[in-house]
């Protein structure tokens, strides 16, 4: 196909798409990225349904890669370029890796400032899909905004948006819909199949939403803590009373970290802390013994897990939340 014909097939999502990257907090504590050089969860398809080669789709995080894989099926080859032990939100690809990504038919962005490298990379705007563009009015401003001023341009802010949007299943549905639309635009002949697969995924995400809602209701307004500021969209969706500290699952927090926790506890005592992965045993013990805080793992699943898939892990999150509330 000539380059001009290729160009004609690729429209929309320009300016903001250039800048609306994203950034999540962590993956799954060193989980691998099955899409690092291949499909997100299923095998690479040899050919699409219509006999044409599969669309090459790059995603900036695992949820998007998984959605694309579910919707695109055999018509897409989904790649998650982030190494298994990296957090996709803060991963920085080399120029050579970006050069590979430039070859994609579609590049799925999370939006909300996630994956800051996308702002600094030369990516083709006509092939970018900012999956939260249509729900940008639901972005949540981060608690941690540094404002500074220097030079003639005056005051400006860095780090303004929370970005783990997919933890709100209704936003995840919007992101999946954007992926479906992007795929349909690239491959109109397969749009019926994409629609059908999207409907199935939407039903699963709605079921997840119900499960999480039940779990959140069972918490009965209990103030909770996040070990990391990644649960804003979850809290907003289910009206959770949530504040966050900056604890890493594989590290013992330093004195400043414990002081920050004590400050939060003095303002309003929490008895539950969400963790992205299982914390160190000594941290868990200290939280329980000194602060009366129980821990529960709620994985954002930003990077690909070793076993299971996105939906399975999200259901497990909901189950653990329900279980600890009982």
């Amino acid at each position, binding site marked *: 196909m000539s380059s001009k014909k290729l*160009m004609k097939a690729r429209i929309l999502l320009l300016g903001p798409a250039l800048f609306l990257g994203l950034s999540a907090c962590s993956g799954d504590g060193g989980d691998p990225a099955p899409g690092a050089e291949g499909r997100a969860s299923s095998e690479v398809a040899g050919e699409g349904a219509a006999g044409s080669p599969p669309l090459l789709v790059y995603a900036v995080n695992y949820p998007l890669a998984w959605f694309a894989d579910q919707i695109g099926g055999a018509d897409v080859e989904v790649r998650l370029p982030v190494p298994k032990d990296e957090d996709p939100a803060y991963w920085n690809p080399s120029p050579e890796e970006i050069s590979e990504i430039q070859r994609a038919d579609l590049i799925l962005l999370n939006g909300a400032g996630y994956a800051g490298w996308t702002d600094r990379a030369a990516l083709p705007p*006509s092939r970018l899909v900012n999956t939260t563009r249509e729900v940008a009015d639901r972005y949540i401003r981060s608690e941690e905004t540094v404002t500074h001023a220097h030079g003639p341009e005056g005051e400006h802010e860095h780090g303004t948006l929370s970005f783990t949007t997919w933890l709100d299943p209704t936003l995840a549905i919007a992101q999946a819909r954007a992926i479906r639309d992007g795929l349909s635009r690239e491959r109109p002949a397969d749009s019926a199949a994409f629609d059908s697969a999207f409907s199935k995924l939407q039903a699963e995400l709605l079921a997840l939403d119900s499960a999480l809602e039940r779990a959140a209701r069972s918490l009965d307004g209990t103030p909770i803590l996040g070990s990391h500021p990644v649960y804003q969209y979850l809290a907003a969706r289910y009206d959770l009373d949530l504040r966050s500290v900056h604890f890493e699952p594989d590290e013992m927090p330093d004195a400043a970290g414990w002081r920050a926790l004590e400050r939060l506890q003095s303002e309003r005592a929490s008895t539950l802390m969400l963790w992205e992965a299982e914390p160190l045993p000594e941290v868990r013990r200290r939280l329980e013994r000194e602060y009366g805080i129980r821990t529960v793992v709620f994985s954002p699943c930003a990077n690909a897990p070793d076993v299971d898939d996105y939906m399975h892990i999200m259901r497990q999150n909901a189950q653990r939340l329900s279980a600890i509330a009982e």
Partner: protein
Amino acid sequence: MTGPLYLAWRYLAFHRWKTAVLVTALTLIFFIPIGLRVLVSQSSEQLTARAHATPLLVGAPGSPTELVLNSLYFGSDVPTPISYAEADAVASTGLATPIPLHVRFRVRDRPIVGTTLEYFDFRDLRISEGRLPATLGEAALGAAAARVLGAGVGDYVISSPESVFDIAGVYPLRMKVSGVLAPSDSPDDQAVFVDIKTAWVIEGLGHGHQDLSRPEAAAGVLSREGNVVIGNASVLQYNEITPDNIDSFHFHGDPGAFPATAIIAIPDDEKASALLQGRYQEDASVQIVRPDDVMSDLLGTVFTVERYVLAGAVIVGLATLATALLVFLLSLRQRRGERETLSRIGGSPGSIRFLMGSEILFVLAISTGIAVLLTLLASRYGSIAARMIAGL
């Protein structure tokens, strides 16, 4: 019969300066009209071809010629910029694919073309060495630009200030060469290509600097109140984007408001093209032009000038031809004694006429040969010469 030919040749060789002047004059008479026609025809073909290959251009209201010359040939003055959001507006119509252009800055005398990756597909530009720019601060050089700047993959080029007095003006950015493009025999050969965001960094809309919240930047902090940090003039700003500092680069303000000098719009088909042009007809804040039409108007003027030049060349040519004829006639009269000597030593009148005629034919043949050669050279390299002369 070879004797008279030999004598004619020896005569021309002996009077080499007179012969040279005659050959030069006749060569110019033959070459100027034909060569000029070839050059104009080639230049117009090339200009038209590039304009024809660029369906639509969206830019600020003003001179369409300036907009087209800047966007297609990277010459002329910099047109008034439009906002980058216009590219999004074109895309959102669903009628065309937009390619933004930012052609304002230079590396020495080579234009820096800030654009997006779609441009390379659109112009069918191929990399001959290295790769296309992947990050902020990387540049791909056109083949001629690489040669003139003496830079290859891994080398650096620096954007030039727009004026020597512009000390606090545009950002002199040191850019790493990521690749060199294969020759395309077009203005793209002369350009330094960067991602449009890099052009915005050069313009000062984005920058990287020390993290003011870190202890090592304490000297650059004027005041700190909660999350608000005020820096002073000593804050270190980077003039080169490296893997170590790229994370500190950021843009201020809404990218949609950032400048583009033009947007190339590639409509899906003729109908989409007409619809898109219709949508812009009532928008006074931007203009949409068909480069083909703009260049046709421009070339119409060029062809008018060419006709005057050709008429002048023909008149001068006729005058020169008459002068050359006079030279030959005077020469024949001057050589009456020579002809009598040839007759006395046994030369037939036919041989003598053949000898004299051969001399004229030799001069005409040499002149014609050189004129043909020059015409061939003009057809081979004329377009390059024309571009160099026009500064495009």
